[in-house]
């Protein structure tokens, strides 16, 4: 993915991350994008350095008897990129609304 250009889907995903949705499935829920788009886009964004991923604490996962989840967050470059993409895709502004329903699990 080019340094100075984001696809619309990628910009939407960055925006979702900025809004506090950190997990792949949450991003799918909020953006309505299919998993076959969201995950490849996340991997590309990570390669490009706009996003970084971390594993959640093991203890949380253990409680729920599932493997730890991976969450994603914006890097500084990602934020800059998002600002730039926002000005490109004006309509994103409308989707930019304060997040009320944070994901259930916190990452301590």
């Amino acid at each position, binding site marked *: 993915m080019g340094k100075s250009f984001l696809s619309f889907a990628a910009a939407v995903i960055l925006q979702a991350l900025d809004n506090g949705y950190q997990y792949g499935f949450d991003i799918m829920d909020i953006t309505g994008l299919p998993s076959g788009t969201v995950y490849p886009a996340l991997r590309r964004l990570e390669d490009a350095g706009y996003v970084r991923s971390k594993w959640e604490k093991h203890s949380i996962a253990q409680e*729920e008897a599932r493997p730890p989840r991976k969450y994603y967050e914006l890097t500084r470059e990602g934020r800059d990129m998002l600002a730039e993409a926002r000005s490109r895709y004006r309509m994103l502004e409308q989707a930019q609304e304060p997040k009320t329903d944070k994901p259930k699990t916190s990452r301590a």
Partner: protein
Amino acid sequence: MQTSSNNSPRFSKPYLALILMIGVIVPRRLRADWRQEWEAELGHREMLLAEWDKLNWQNKLDLWWRSLGAFWDALLLQPRRMEDEMFQDLRYGCRMLLKNPGFTLIAVITLALGIGANTAIFSLTNALLFRSLPVPQPEQLVTFNRGEGVSLGAVSYPDFVALRERNEVLSGLAASHFTELSFGNGSRSEVVSGELVSGDYFDVLRVQPALGRGFLPEEERTFGSPPVMVISHGFWRSRLNGDPNIINQTITVNRQKYSVVGVAPAGFNGIREMFPTDFWLPLTMLPQVNPTLQTSLSNRHDQLFAAIGRLKSGVSIVRAQAALETINRQLDLADPPVSHQRNVNEDRSIKLEHPQGLGIPSLQRRAKIAATLLFVVVGIVLLIACANVANLLLTRSTARRKEIAVRLALGASRFRLARQMLTESLLLGLLGAGAGLLLAFWINRALMTLKPPVPGAVGFNLDLRLDASVLGFTLLLAMLVSLLFGLVPALAASKPEVVPALKDETGAATKHGRLNLRNALVVSQLAVSLVLLIAAGLFIRSLQQMQKIDPGFQTENRLALSFYLEPQGYDEAKGREFARQLVERVRALPGVQAATMANYLPMGFMLLTEEVAIDGRATPPDARNLNIAAQLIGLDYFRTIGTPLVRGRDFTPQDSANAPAVAIINETLARRFFPNEDPIGKRLRFGDAASNAQPCEIVGIVKDTLIRLDDQRLRAVTYRPLAQQHSQRMTLLVHTDGNPNALFAAVRQAVQALDENLPAQDIKTLDEFIAFTFWPMQMGARLVGAFGLLGLLLASVGLYGVMSYAVAARTHEIGVRMALGAEQRDVLWLIVGQGLNLTLLGTGAGLALALAATRVLQRFLFGIGTTDPITFFGVALLLTLVALLACWLPARRATQVDPLVALRHD
């Protein structure tokens, strides 16, 4: 948050199973993380849904849908797999090669031999055929040829000037005339090579002199001035000790002083790179350099000059040729060429070519043929080497069966395994190429010493470099070769046969198949190496035949020394006097039986042919199109060279300049011109019909001599006395009592006593003098012979390998046989017989192949047919013997098998 008491086992969920399955295609390094991420997401979502009591079929379908999306995710990660595995393959390959240093060493050496030979021949071909001049933008340069382009000159000076002025396709056009010059070095002088060039020569070539300047356009204005010169860097360094104050000093060239205005840059050797130039003079000095060419500069039909032009940018060579040809036609119309008898229909059209390699079309054609032959030869050597390495790989893959089976059992794909093995092959190929380059460097050094024995000042600059194009060729070759020897073993080895291999079973059926493949490789190796050896044998036999042939004159105890008198300021009277005195002095030397002069000697570098007709009547049809060599000879020539007179008389002192013109002819000419009558007393007319030279009366007939070995039509020779026909080129021929080398110094002294300035370095025995004739055949015999032996060596190593392997594989069987009472002799025969079968198969196939293949050698051979039975039989015998030796060594090992040990084997 709810503890998942109702959690079913993780993988019971169908979408989790789907993730597990899709995960297979994710690169191994990323696989665990990838699966975990998806499982965690799906698990978490499912748990939430269950918690909210919304785990209905719609949501389950949605989960399904989402897990299917994981497939796209996995696909996206595929490129990383390639990168990963490539490095993995490389690392693994390096480890495997290091683990078997013996195998690696043998394979690399074998490949190095094949690749090295090919690289060397490529660099030779590159130098002879393709290398362009070392000047800026050589691709813009074009040289002029006319028609067939056999002569060195393409344009006359007036034509050159017209072409230069009128054309609109060239940014510049320069002319050059090649000539021998005499360099006056103190009291002695020597022959150097020179170019007489137009004023813009260095500008057109864009050559910046290392010191001083090139010529100026105004230095082409007045004939006979100015006496300035540019010298080559090599000459300046080697002969003038790189004198930094050389500019404006004077150098004597052809007895005239020239002031040095420039030194050419290092590496620039003139417009024919392989025949380096020492001196450049302005072409206006032509009348001073060579008085016989006094009028040539103003004659439009004296095509003395080579022309080299630089295309304007954007002009194609085709367009330029058409434009220049138009001017050429106009020139021809304005002043039509004089119709000579021989070249009325001569193709006079201008042809443009980029200057490359040898630069002389006729030589280039020969070089192309020789290069093709050599490439075929080294190509075969490379194929043999490849077969050897393929065999080694097959052997090793047998040893690695277990490893491969384990990897297959653990889920490695066949493709992946084959790729792994090809990577190892590529590593081997690259190592072989590296070693091959080193070898090519040495072969090139050896090739550079095999310069043709060209006489006098004609230098030959064969500079074989491993430059970028050679390196590129080698790299490409290494990759091609890796595929060639690696593919079949890789496919064969990765064939899944997991169970028997894991159980350590020998798998008799498959091994049999593999042995067949190996046998086929060895048989074809033997066959092609036989073809190579037969080709080498044919060359060697041809050379023998050539050297055995009676040239019609004696070469033993004779020496020869050539002079070119013109540049030394000799006119006809002075030249005659010099020749007379020199022969007199040499005859008086102790140890000299006879001495004479001739314009040139048979089978040497020089050759002059002339039109000859019977005076007063038509030439018989049988004698037309006969190239007739014309020799001018001194008194006593036939006795000195040892050619017997058959009829009539030899020339006598009475056949002087004022006496009636006389000639002697050889038997071939007598037979062709006068089939049913006595030639003695008949008269011959020399030169074209228009010439008014006095006809010569035939006074004698001599036995045939060979003029050139390779040209069968060149058998007719005429001899005329030097006394009646002067020549500026003279060759002194001396018949000595004993070793001619002992007289070199004395003969040189005799020359110097007459004229200190006359170069007399190039004295040779007659055998050395005619060596040039044998040179192409000698080269053929040496090169093809060397590569043929290399092929034989490789093929027998291959056979040895296969037989060793067979012995190892049959140890158990041999043990049983010996336990049951087989003698050592029986075992020996068992193995040798197996090898003999292969050898005979290979020899048979090779002979059949050679019968078909050697036909293309026809034009290179001399005195024998392409199916010479002695060669075929001898070489087949040699191959069989070497092959038997290769079988016998492992067979002997087989006889030493201890039955007790062997039975425990496997």
